């Protein structure tokens, strides 16, 4: 909803056309509900980032450092020299428009400056002005413009209206990764202290305590102990025993802290605990959690490459300290993009770890040869492929499931088939959304890259509209009532999105579905799912115990 209310005389005029103005002449309108609050100065200070101060995006005065133009100009120049891709992306766009209508924010909001090409032009116009001869001479005719305070405000508003999901880059004939343009723009904004708090505070927390929420080690352990009790209750008396910070364990497990603290991710966390317990009982699987590397997510990625590197390094430092062979990673989004695309040249090679091999099937995880970190979907798919899990998919029969490809695992690392293979082996009712909304072309949840705050709810609802629209289609066509995903931000962002657009659909992680179907050794009287809800058709007298035949 717009805040602006029309006067009666304005209401009388029904004008079907909005006056056409060049985009450069249309000033930014910072609209309530469409932006996140500015960063808390204490958080900025904590990690030593520059120009920490309290400021408000709605104020005229953003309390910028006096030489802010110079800082941006020098920062721009430094990055053009340092990152060849950035220079190339600034130069080669021919404005063909192939990306224009591919952005979920453009499709949802209808704001032309959310077209990826135009969002990039916000930066490119200043690049032309400051760094190209033709721009310096011809100015606006060559699409160049000076960096002014209004342009800066436009940068801040629109580069924090991009989830770096890279859907647009799939369609670019030149292979321009528009997300990397956003990444660079955010780096420049950070040079003058212009970040948002939903990024800055998690970064500071993660740096201090190891996770975004600032949960200290004892509280992290307490949470998992609560899950142990919950599992005993819902999984038929099974007593799981997670281990923490154990030196000499074979494998270190790292997942986003959202799985430990926010529903429905908590059920996915319970799923991990049950899966590891199953594997330990059956095959002597040896894994440990860490209360220090207690976060897979890396909001440094949305701040600057230096900050991303610092936060990523703690995971590997912990793996080294514990002396594990390799790392197993949980269901996370951008953690995997950081690992798959940046870790190796940033903190790698992790040659103190071993090339990952499944201790149960002997499979070598070639994709993780260098990073030494294996995705749980790949790990579980391999177990299922080798028939190492006893599963009763009928325990998920009350669910009609579809799968949302989380942008980072899908486009950032090509993890498309493994989660589907797992879900189709643990659920009998699976339906795909339309082709142009899944796999490489998946639509973002609308809340990634640090935009899952509460104050920007309009932005999130509109950014998630194309995704919700596809879910609505399979809900109406097939009765789909469960949306599965492999990302903690998705698990936090999709429930309110569904509640607004398709309220009949709930959200789950992949491992929750696995644990629902897993026949645990020694389980008795297991009639509920992980959420403690009775599974229709499962009466206490026909509960399956270990060794029962499973009918599909």
């Amino acid at each position, binding site marked *: 909803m*717009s805040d602006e209310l029309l006067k009666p005389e304005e209401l009388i005029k029904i004008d*079907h056309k909005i006056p056409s103005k060049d985009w450069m002449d249309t000033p930014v309108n910072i609209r309530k509900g469409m932006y996140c609050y500015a960063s808390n100065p204490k958080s900025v200070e904590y990690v030593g980032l520059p120009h920490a101060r309290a400021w408000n995006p709605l104020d005229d005065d953003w309390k910028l450092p006096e030489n802010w133009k110079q800082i941006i100009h020098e920062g721009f120049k430094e990055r053009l020299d340092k990152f060849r891709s950035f220079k190339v992306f600034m130069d080669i766009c021919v404005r063909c428009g192939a990306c224009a209508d591919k952005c979920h924010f453009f*499709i949802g909001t209808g704001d032309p400056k959310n077209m990826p090409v135009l969002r990039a032009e916000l930066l490119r116009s200043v690049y032309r002005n400051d760094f190209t001869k033709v721009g310096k001479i011809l100015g606006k005719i060559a699409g160049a413009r000076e960096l002014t305070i209004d342009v800066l405000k436009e940068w801040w508003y629109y580069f924090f209206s991009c989830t770096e999901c890279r859907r647009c880059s799939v369609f670019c004939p030149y292979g321009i990764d528009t997300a990397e343009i956003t990444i660079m723009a955010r780096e420049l904004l950070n040079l003058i202290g212009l970040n948002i708090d939903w990024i800055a505070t998690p970064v500071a927390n993660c740096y201090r305590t190891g996770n975004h929420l600032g949960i200290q080690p004892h509280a992290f352990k307490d949470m998992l102990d609560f899950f142990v009790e919950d599992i005993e209750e819902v999984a038929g008396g099974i007593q799981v025993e997670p281990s923490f910070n154990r030196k000499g364990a074979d494998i270190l497990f790292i997942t986003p802290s959202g799985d430990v603290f926010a529903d429905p991710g908590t059920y996915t966390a319970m799923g991990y605990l049950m899966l590891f317990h199953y594997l330990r009982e059956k095959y002597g699987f040896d894994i440990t959690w860490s209360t220090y590397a207690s976060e897979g997510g890396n909001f440094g990625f949305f701040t600057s490459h230096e900050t991303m590197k610092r936060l990523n390094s703690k995971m590997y430092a912990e793996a080294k300290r514990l002396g594990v062979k390799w790392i197993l990673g949980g269901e996370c989004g951008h953690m995997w993009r950081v690992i798959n695309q940046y870790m190796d040249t940033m903190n790698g090679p992790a040659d103190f770890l071993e090339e990952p091999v499944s201790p149960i099937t002997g499979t070598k995880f070639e994709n993780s040869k260098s990073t030494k970190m294996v995705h749980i979907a790949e790990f579980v798919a391999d177990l299922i492929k080798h028939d190492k899990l006893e599963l009763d998919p009928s325990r998920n029969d009350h669910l009609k499931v579809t799968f949302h490809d989380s942008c980072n695992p899908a486009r950032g690392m090509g993890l498309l088939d493994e989660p589907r293979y797992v879900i189709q082996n643990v659920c009998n009712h699976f339906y795909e959304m339309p082709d142009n909304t899944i796999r490489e072309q998946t639509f973002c949840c609308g809340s990634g890259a640090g935009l899952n705050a509460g104050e920007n709810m309009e932005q999130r609802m509109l950014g998630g509209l194309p995704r919700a629209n596809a879910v609505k289609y399979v809900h109406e066509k097939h009765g789909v009532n469960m949306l599965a995903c492999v990302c903690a931000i998705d698990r936090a962002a999709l429930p309110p999105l569904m509640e607004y657009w398709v309220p009949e659909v709930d959200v789950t992680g992949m491992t929750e579905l696995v644990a629902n179907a897993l026949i645990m050794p020694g389980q008795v009287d297991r009639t509920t799912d992980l959420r403690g809800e009775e599974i229709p058709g499962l009466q206490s007298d026909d509960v399956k115990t270990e060794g029962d035949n499973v009918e599909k």
Partner: protein
Amino acid sequence: MSGHVKNFLEKRKTVIIKKWFDCVVDTYPPETASFLKKEKDPFNNPVGKTTVQCLEAIIDHLLDKRSEQDMISHLDPIIRIRSVQDFPPSKAAGFVLFLKKIIREELNNQKSKDVEINELSALDSKIDELVLIAFDVYAKCRETFYQIKANEAKNRFYKAFERAGLVTGLTEEKQDLS
């Protein structure tokens, strides 16, 4: 609705919907309007698809093919979208009124003299009723939106505190502000 105006609407339905659709999407910036008109895939263009479906349903309602209850469910998807987009309430729900002007223009264009003034007044009243329903739907969408916002804020903190044992003994029931 009966008589000449109904026949006229029936006959010119496609043209009227096309013109009306153009007017509604012209409430967006021109670059966006051109995308909404051009893109035919319903998954690449959910706003355009939802808009056209809603307009068709309204015309059917005027032709007595749909009940008022139906209209709430048909107006809901488009207003659900417009109520979170950058429109004031009048613009989010007021697009229904464009129809009056379009029908008059179309009557003029066709030089139709059969439609009588009282028939046109009856049609206007029906459109006015639809606008009121549209505002009801708008208010409901905003209410739902704020409930979701409030519940999310509350759940984020409450559940974390609850799990950390800080609210033990208060209640075990799931709290919902809705």
